[in-house]
């Protein structure tokens, strides 16, 4: 497998999905080499995690607040910072080099950053390649435009691929409309989540201020994720303004970093709600978990969300969600509130109405938790294993 990140060194949902999927495949007796573009301790025993280190480089460390840059440490002692595009090129060649030394039946590549490596490996070995699309460029850029270089890679790789997996129907439709890929080449394999029982009764929480204000009858509405165009946060803030008009006892907690950060801080001030909107930047661990826990409602207002794991993470902590209909997760998660990302009226209505009804929040939380409790990766794993078998048979027949 070719991947870009794994927990705990991930900046978002991609790493989590890859980790949980592989764990499920491994428990079904699949041998996996997972090639990542950096060196770090993952504490993973169910597969081989292999760093793609080019010749002449001693190690590559992830850096930046959300792991958005890479530190190359060369054998001659030099140190150089790589941005994501530099690193994409370095990875493509290094990963295909590593592939020459390993034995495998299938190459399974996750998202555009690994697609070129997959093509290079196919060129060298003629091994079948499966591309797993967690998002396409038009999702990430929040528009039709996006980076033309990235679009070219996605298009070329998808045309060359033996098979394409989309994490939702939403994504499958995007692949068809953006790149004209034949429908029957794309299989939908929804993401899932490893069910973890959280201690949701603990009274300790890092957000002491919010805890205190909740004891005074305030409600907390949270968003956790990257602050990028794709995530639809300007609409969320506009809805927040209206919710505060109706219910001034509401705080909005926005946990994350990203290129829209300054714009959003500005917008909150412009809307006159700076006192009620709390920005925390990117968080991990306890402070990340506590953000889900402290919230009465989690909102994922994404303009375009191929899957969107966070509402499932939220319910693990007992927190119900409002998600945009333009998300993959809304295809599989029934017990959540849903809204079109552009419908600020309805978004404000759903937030304000739900947080003013404890009965509704509790019922939504309980039903969603029932749904969450029985989730597993097994269905998705079964679909993938069938696909692997199919391609292995084809490849053997061709020899």
């Amino acid at each position: 497998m070719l991947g870009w990140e794994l927990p705990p060194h991930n900046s978002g949902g991609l790493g989590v999905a890859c980790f949980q999927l592989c764990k499920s495949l491994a428990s079904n007796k699949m041998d996996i080499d997972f090639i990542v573009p950096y060196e770090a301790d993952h504490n993973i025993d169910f597969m081989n995690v292999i760093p793609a280190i080019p010749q002449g480089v001693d190690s590559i460390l992830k850096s930046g607040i959300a792991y958005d840059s890479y530190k190359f440490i060369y054998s001659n002692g030099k140190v150089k910072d790589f941005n994501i595009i530099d690193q994409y090129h370095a990875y493509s060649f290094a990963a295909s080099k590593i592939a020459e030394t390993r034995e495998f039946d299938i190459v399974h590549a996750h998202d555009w950053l690994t697609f070129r490596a997959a093509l290079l490996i196919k060129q060298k070995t003629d091994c079948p390649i499966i591309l797993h699309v967690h998002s396409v460029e038009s999702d990430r850029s929040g528009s039709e435009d996006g980076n033309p270089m990235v679009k070219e890679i996605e298009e070329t790789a998808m045309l060359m691929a033996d098979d394409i997996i989309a994490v939702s129907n939403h994504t499958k439709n995007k692949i068809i409309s953006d790149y004209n890929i034949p429908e029957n080449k794309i299989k939908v394999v929804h993401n899932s989540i490893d069910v973890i029982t959280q201690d949701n009764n603990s009274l300790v929480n890092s957000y002491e201020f919010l805890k205190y204000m909740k004891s005074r009858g305030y409600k907390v509405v949270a968003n956790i994720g990257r602050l990028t165009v794709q995530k639809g946060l300007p609409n969320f803030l506009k809805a927040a303004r209206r919710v505060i008009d109706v219910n001034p006892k509401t705080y909005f907690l926005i946990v994350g970093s990203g290129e829209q950060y300054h714009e959003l801080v500005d917008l909150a001030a412009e809307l006159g709600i700076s006192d009620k909107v709390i920005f925390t930047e990117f968080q991990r661990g306890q402070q990340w978990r506590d953000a889900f826990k402290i919230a009465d409602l989690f909102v994922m207002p994404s303009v375009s969300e191929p899957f969107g794991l966070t509402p499932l993470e939220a319910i693990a902590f007992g927190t119900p969600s409002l998600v945009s209909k333009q998300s993959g997760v809304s295809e599989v998660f029934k017990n959540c509130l849903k809204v079109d990302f552009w419908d600020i009226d309805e978004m404000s209505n759903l937030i304000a109405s739900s947080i003013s009804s404890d009965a509704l929040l509790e019922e939504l939380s309980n039903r969603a938790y029932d749904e969450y409790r029985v989730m597993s990766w097994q269905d998705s794993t079964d679909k993938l294993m069938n696909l692997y078998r199919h391609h292995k048979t084809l490849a053997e027949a061709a020899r």
Partner: protein
Amino acid sequence: MNDKKSIVLYLHVHQPFRIRHYTVFDTAINSDYFDSAFDSKASNEAVLKKVTAKSYIPTNTILLRLLNRYPEFRFSISITGTILEQMEKWAPEALRSFQELVATGRVEIVAETYHHSLAFFYSMSEFETQVQMHEDKINQLFGIMPQVFRNTELAYNNELAKWAEAKGYKGILAEGWDPVLGWRNPNFVYRPTGTENIALLLKNYKLSDDLAFRFSDTNWSEWPLTASKYSHWLSETKDVNNINLFMDYETFGEHQWSDSGIFDFLEHLPAEWLKNTQHDFKTVSEVIDSSPPVDEINVEHTVTWADTERDLSAWLGNPMQNSAINNLYSLTEKVHETNDLSLIEDWRKLQTSDHFYYMCTKYFNDGDIHAYFSPYDSPYEAHMNFMNAYRDILYRINQKGIDTDG
């Protein structure tokens, strides 16, 4: 009319209590907003010690020497409550050096708000309290009572002049901004519109900024500026009673570094100027006492000494700044109800205008003077640290049993 041509040098001494990297995880837990680690850019102690070494001590050493050498030499300063507190705590030697200057009897201290705030525009009672606090502090540390008023950032309008007159001040300072002056020049004493007993002194910004901003600019056509050249300019200036050179004290050694020659300049200026017996120096009160106003100046809209706009937009120009300051002052009544002096004092320290200056987005992308003075990476970070501190104040008020929702 004053029979001599006078330099009225007025230096403003101030440091704020900068807010540390203060997050939501600190809110309602620690209230130590102003306690940055010493190695942080926002460390008040580190900044004060640095500026003391680079500016306050060397400058005061020269100024004291000049006072001893030239009986005609005199000037005025304003010094905020926040920096006096910091000097008492971290640089007592700097405080002593200011006390020595004032003890000569030829250095006048100008009145202002203790917290270097914009309270005049938000809460009159709060404003008056802070002016009183400052007067008390000056009296306690220097044994004198200020006679002339300057508002934070020289923010001035007719209403402020009327207030200062009613409070018994003999004079008030403002920016000598061209639209305010019209055909007049700043080199005389004026009378604010709507007043009878108070004088207005206007900063000669061209000559002041030659020192404060341009002195070390090697691209400036007049660079290098020597004391004799500058003195010559001043002598050649026609239609002059008094030349008001108003600037930040930190011009000497901090904004203009020692290697720019600013200290030599200062050391030689009095000798150059006093070569002509028709020249002298005056404090702000002395020039007001010796020179009756020549005309009336009408300032309806607030004028300040900042940026090319000379308005309040450096502090109150964007929504982040406005929401921060409005939220802070919305607590005025409730915070006083607590009677908790340390809480009220923290709230007052948040009023210092510098906090809002750090949130300024004008020219943020150009990395200009605003960025130079900010201890934060961006105006956004400044805003968020401030809002988290604001929410902690809100929390503390409620903890005292005062309901901020009511």
